[in-house]
């Protein structure tokens, strides 16, 4: 249902007048404790296109820099009576903790290495629009699985929707227990890509790494970087995705990333706005404006 609603917003976003008044009088605060271009901007656009008032707060420019704790920040913002908080936090569970302390709805915009639910939703929308379905597709998620919240959310969503999920990466970047999430594990990229419909590349998250997980970028690209040679192992009509930001020449070759016939990467960004509009729409429907329900929307 959320994806169907998002389809509707894709059309609205492509029209000349992108604005509606659905969220008029609603306040949305984007609270980002970690840098973001795509997620923050798309939530901001989503809120504005639905007619809501959107405020952006980033950790760099706020009291968090002055040593305010997460809970105090949450209480402060809560006192300003927003309807929705969109939160990104560098620690797993950080968004959950914050959501326990506020009365408004909370959307997880990514927490640590735990989850990034709206990214998984937009990925699903992008796939469904091109392939017409999710059921029965084989999706390979490749790269730094260990540090990826995008990967965890995608596994949950894709499995729920009936896709088959594989994860591919060097053993140091694939948690040993990941098979418990219902995925097939490959350490050989070509073998893992065989007969895949979707190739989802992940960024090497060096900022989350303590110590060395791969010996060099050169070696990593040689074995796990996506180029035309490796892509040839997947189905001929396999599509390439990447949640961004991309490190060209690290996990993905520029030629592949920019191949308009194969790459879904730019469409993913477009879908990001539509999906987030759908999330805000659905979420505010359940908000009684005078007594907003407690708790978060994990989407």
């Amino acid at each position, binding site marked *: 249902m959320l994806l169907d609603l998002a389809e509707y917003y894709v059309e609205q976003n492509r029209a000349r007048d992108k604005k509606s008044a659905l969220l008029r009088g609603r306040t949305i605060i984007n609270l980002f404790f970690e840098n973001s271009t795509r997620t923050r901007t798309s939530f901001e656009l989503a809120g504005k296109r639905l007619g809501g008032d959107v405020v952006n707060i980033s950790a760099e420019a706020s009291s968090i820099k002055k040593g305010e704790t997460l809970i105090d920040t949450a209480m402060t913002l809560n006192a300003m009576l927003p309807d929705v908080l969109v939160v990104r936090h560098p620690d797993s*569970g950080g968004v959950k*903790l914050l959501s326990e302390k506020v009365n408004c709805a909370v959307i997880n915009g990514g927490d640590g290495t735990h989850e990034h639910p709206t990214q998984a939703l937009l990925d699903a929308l992008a796939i469904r629009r091109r392939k017409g379905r999710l059921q029965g597709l084989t999706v390979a998620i490749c790269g730094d699985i260990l540090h990826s919240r995008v990967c*965890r959310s995608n596994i949950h969503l894709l499995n729920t929707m009936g896709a088959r999920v594989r994860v591919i990466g060097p053993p140091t970047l694939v948690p040993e227990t990941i098979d418990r999430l219902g995925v097939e594990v490959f350490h050989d990229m070509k073998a893992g890509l065989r007969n895949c419909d979707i190739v989802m590349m992940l960024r090497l998250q060096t900022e989350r790494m303590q110590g060395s997980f791969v010996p060099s970028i050169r070696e990593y690209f040689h074995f796990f970087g996506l180029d035309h040679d490796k892509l040839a192992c997947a189905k001929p009509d396999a599509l390439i995705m990447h949640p961004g930001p991309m490190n060209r020449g690290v996990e993905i070759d520029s030629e592949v990333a920019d191949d308009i016939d194969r790459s879904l990467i730019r469409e993913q960004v477009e879908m990001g706005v539509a999906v987030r509009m759908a999330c805000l729409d659905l979420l505010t429907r359940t908000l009684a404006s005078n007594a907003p329900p407690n708790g978060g929307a994990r989407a």
Partner: protein
Amino acid sequence: MIQPRSIGAGRKGGPPIAYVNARLLDPASAMDSLGGVIVADGVIADIGPQLARAAALGARGIEAVDCQCACLAPGLVDMRVQLREPGEEHKETMASAGAAAAAGGITTMICLPNTRPVLDDAALVESVMRRARETACVHIRPYAAVTKGLAGREMTEMGLLAEAGAVGFTDATHAVADSVVMRRALAYSKAFNRPIIQHPEEPSLAQGGVMNEGEIAMRLGLTGIPIVAEVIMVERDLRLVELTGGRCHIAHLSTAAAVDAVRRAKARGINVTADTAPQYFALNELAVGDYRTFAKVSPPLRSEEDRQAVVDGLKDGTIDAIASDHAPHDQDSKRLPFAQAAFGMIGLETLLAVTLELVHNRRLSLMQAVAKLTSGPAAILGLPAGTLAKNAAADLVLFDPERPWRIAEKKFRSKSKNSPFDGRPVQGRALKTLVDGAVVFTLEE
């Protein structure tokens, strides 16, 4: 109710008092019978089944307390307590920890040296002991650091520290990771007959970890601490004990692999002892749930198989003692995202009740459980405590092993409230606690 030690019968300089009609439990002498105790001048003046009835006191004019068949045992000896005094008195003081201990039936606490400043100097050990005597209603004995500043490099003045009153040496929540430092500490401490108490965790393998490594950590997106981090350190230390002939006590075993390593070492006659804490036999990693920071402890809560192996280790004697591993933290240290929250939970007031779960579940006998809390730790540290012998200090706990209650954070006497056992229904509670013959705690109805 917590009472000062300076009032009441039985204390030093006070009139004698008899506790009759009690189930006497003394693991040191394997006594389990109905009887009584006469406490005079702070010591056990007489004890035995012959004192079961007040009538046996004859016309000696001694006041008698009817214990109504509750268990009378040596006061508990808790061999691993973090006191926050000196340095972090907002989390706990000796007085507040003492009150909590008394309410938990504990009469002797051994405190870790990770205070601010670190207890790595004889003068500091003396000052802690003096301060403890002045402010706490139970006995407090300190460990001193193995290395200066707990930095893991330079040995402390172990001889002088032992003379000042340190009952053993430990780098508290840090492992002595450097093998040469550990080898020398084990060898050197032999001269002063004090054990080295090791936090068994290989730091490079545990680096950045916040909970047990495995499926749950993976699902929560948290960095794990692998089981091998514990067993590697235990195996190394066992080799070093064999090499040096020193004495090592391994604190808070949490994994099946490490329990097994200690079991095999004991079978080979290696001079090693071990303890665990209630959280490692009463909880598993599921307690972390949805990022509950109160369940963030070090070592981390492990899998269900590990938990059961810890119970087996207690049962077969591989694990000699149970300690609370009391680690008070204020809200500011715990109300944080999981990765940033402090490690540790409080445990003084729940030690007895949670340990008795093993008795109610028929995993340990009552005598075994009491031994792990009294004579077990006293023997490891060579303390004159944990026994009901005649002329021993009258450090006693009267407890009802069946009494049901619910652990409630609000009722904790500890200044900090960080317990994952909050809300847990348990059975068994201290009714009265005596230190040197003086009643320091009486349970109010």
